[in-house]
């Protein structure tokens, strides 16, 4: 399995060369800097909900839109770079394509920044039709900039996915083998060819679902753009909601599946054990591939006009979606760590903590995916709680874990890093707890001004964000410091 960097930086210090390491570094650093800023934006929103600061309503909602859209794009960027690095060797991926994807992400994020901060676009990251068009507090061009921004990000991810898929076809002669199905059905295998390792299986699944998801995203975005140009272009609100959430659910969900690929690649290096493909693992990924596509229906439970078949498909496959990660990836990771004498460092601590976030966030998601519970949880802060648990307390932690591993972890964990981890994980826990309790108390999401007991809980959360960001600062500085060292002494790295 390719867990070692293959490219040694050029001996002469050139200004910048397009190598796997350099492209991945630039993806990670860009994403972390912006995530940090958007985390502060999140803190400001919490402070506003606590009535500590008082933003105008439209400003609050522009920030909310920026935070949601930006965070999803940036965590996807970081994790996509991580998984790319884990498989680029096996699949013979070229840094230039990742660079093109990165450039499109940047273009998209700049457009979203301009649309929200300059233009004041504020229809939420889901830009649910017809909100971007009706009685807006922002000029029409801001809507255009936002839609084009999301389109650019989608295009970038689409190129990333297509590159992986075509590489899988080239290397393994088919997507089924890319999913490792020859481990389950030996007849599928080719003589003399090894079964795809777990990170490749994850990459293949992400490639397929990502390609389909971005396609759906393009379809709804083009429909909205057509409507923008020609208001007579008809859009059905229920259709738009279905396609939008099909797209949004897939993209947000794939962050964690991208991350799973890096867990397969890097957790074994800490535990000193191998993680090999077998039939069960391959089957579990086929399951995930299907369930990620069909589970989006849980976003429309409260649309009673939605065809019942889609509601039941949504509920049953939302439940089933928990099985592959819980039984194979998370269970497998815990088994890998069990009495392994694992080496604890920033990377392994965060991988391990991220698994907890994934499991807990998944549990909260399953409760919300139960229609009778959704009746009282839908669009409350419970929803925000569950996805922050597995995005902030899961995918994002996996991204830092990867970065730390990537930066090199030769020397022992520093005291600063240790303190940073405590603060980060403690802060996240408190921050999430506030969302969960608020949700149970019926506080709706996306409220600039919340009903009781929202403001009190928001106050705790604001304090928790400060702790979280302090910890994040320490951890990121530690990673950055190590990255600089290993660039100075490349032979020591990794």
């Amino acid at each position: 399995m390719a867990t070692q960097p293959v490219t040694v930086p050029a001996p002469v210090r050139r200004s910048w060369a397009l190598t796997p390491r350099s492209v991945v570094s630039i993806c990670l650093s860009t994403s972390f800097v912006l995530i940090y800023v958007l985390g502060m934006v999140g803190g400001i929103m919490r402070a506003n909900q606590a009535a500590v600061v008082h933003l105008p309503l439209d400003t609050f909602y522009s920030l909310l839109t920026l935070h949601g859209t930006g965070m999803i794009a940036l965590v996807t960027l970081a994790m996509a770079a991580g998984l790319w690095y884990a498989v680029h060797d096996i699949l013979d991926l070229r840094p230039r394509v990742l660079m093109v994807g990165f450039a499109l992400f940047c273009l998209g994020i700049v457009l979203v920044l301009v649309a929200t901060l300059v233009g004041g676009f504020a229809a939420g990251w889901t830009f649910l039709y017809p909100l971007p068009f009706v009685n807006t507090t922002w000029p029409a061009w801001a809507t255009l900039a936002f839609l084009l921004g999301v389109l650019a990000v989608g295009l970038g991810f689409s190129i990333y996915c297509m590159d992986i898929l075509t590489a899988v076809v080239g290397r393994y002669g088919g997507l089924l083998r890319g999913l490792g199905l020859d481990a389950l059905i030996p007849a599928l295998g080719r003589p003399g060819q090894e079964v795809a390792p777990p990170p490749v299986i994850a990459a293949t699944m992400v490639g397929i679902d990502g390609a389909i998801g971005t396609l759906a995203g393009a379809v709804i975005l083009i429909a909205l753009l057509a409507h923008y140009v020609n208001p007579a272009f008809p859009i059905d609100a229920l259709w738009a909601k279905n396609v939008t959430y099909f797209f949004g659910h897939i993209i947000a969900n794939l962050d964690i599946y991208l991350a799973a690929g890096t867990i397969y690649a890097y957790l074994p290096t800490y535990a000193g054990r191998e993680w090999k493909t077998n039939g069960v693992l391959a089957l579990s990924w086929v399951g995930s591939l299907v369930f990620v596509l069909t589970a989006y229906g849980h976003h429309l439970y409260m649309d009673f006009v939605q065809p019942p078949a889609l509601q039941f498909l949504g509920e049953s496959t939302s439940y089933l979606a928990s099985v592959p990660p819980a039984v194979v990836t998370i269970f497998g990771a815990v088994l890998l760590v069990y009495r392994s004498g694992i080496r604890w460092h920033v990377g392994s601590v965060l991988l391990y903590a991220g698994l907890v976030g994934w499991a807990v966030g998944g549990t909260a998601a399953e409760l919300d995916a139960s229609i009778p519970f959704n009746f009282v949880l839908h669009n409350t802060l419970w929803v925000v709680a569950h996805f922050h648990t597995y995005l902030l307390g899961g995918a994002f932690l996996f991204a830092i874990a990867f970065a730390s591993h990537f930066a090199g972890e030769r020397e022992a964990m520093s005291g600063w890093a240790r303190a940073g981890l405590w603060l980060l994980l403690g802060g996240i826990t408190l921050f999430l707890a506030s969302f969960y309790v608020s949700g149970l108390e019926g506080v709706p999401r996306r409220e600039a001004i919340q009903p009781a007991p929202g403001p009190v809980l928001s106050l705790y959360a604001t304090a928790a964000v400060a702790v979280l960001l302090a910890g994040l600062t320490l951890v990121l500085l530690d990673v950055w410091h190590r990255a600089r060292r290993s660039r100075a002494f490349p032979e020591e790295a990794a």
Partner: protein
Amino acid sequence: MIKERPSGVDAEATVGPSWVADAALGIAFAAALAYAVLSPFAGEAPSVALHHLAHGAIMVVAGAVGIRIARRVPPTAGDGQDAHPGGSRPLVLAVLAEAAAIALMAFDAGSWLDRHPALHLAMHLTLMALTFAAAVWGERYRRGAGTLVTAMMAAMAAIAATGFGAG
């Protein structure tokens, strides 16, 4: 790093009487072209869903032709990684062509197409040309990529058939 290129796909492509496949593809292409040219003048417009699916069908045929041709033409210097390591242009072009095809569908709604059958015809031909180009570019990037891009076009038409342009 040079990798042994798995030869499975080549073998499949050359095994068996390839003229049979060529002839079948030729007939399909003629049929697709006939639909593309004639249907805009056929009066009664099909439902939105059927219309998108028909677009998907003619695009798949155009893509298949593109793949078939691309596999016969030896790669040139401007091609993807086989000929020119690190080149990403064909892949980017293929994905852009795909996006352009989706964008074109924006015109695919309401009575607009019925009023301008000539433009409708032009749109059909452009959709086919874009898929053809995307398939060729894809195939030039990496063997097998043309198939994936064509499949994406079909998937796009299928997603659109759920209600794009209906309201």
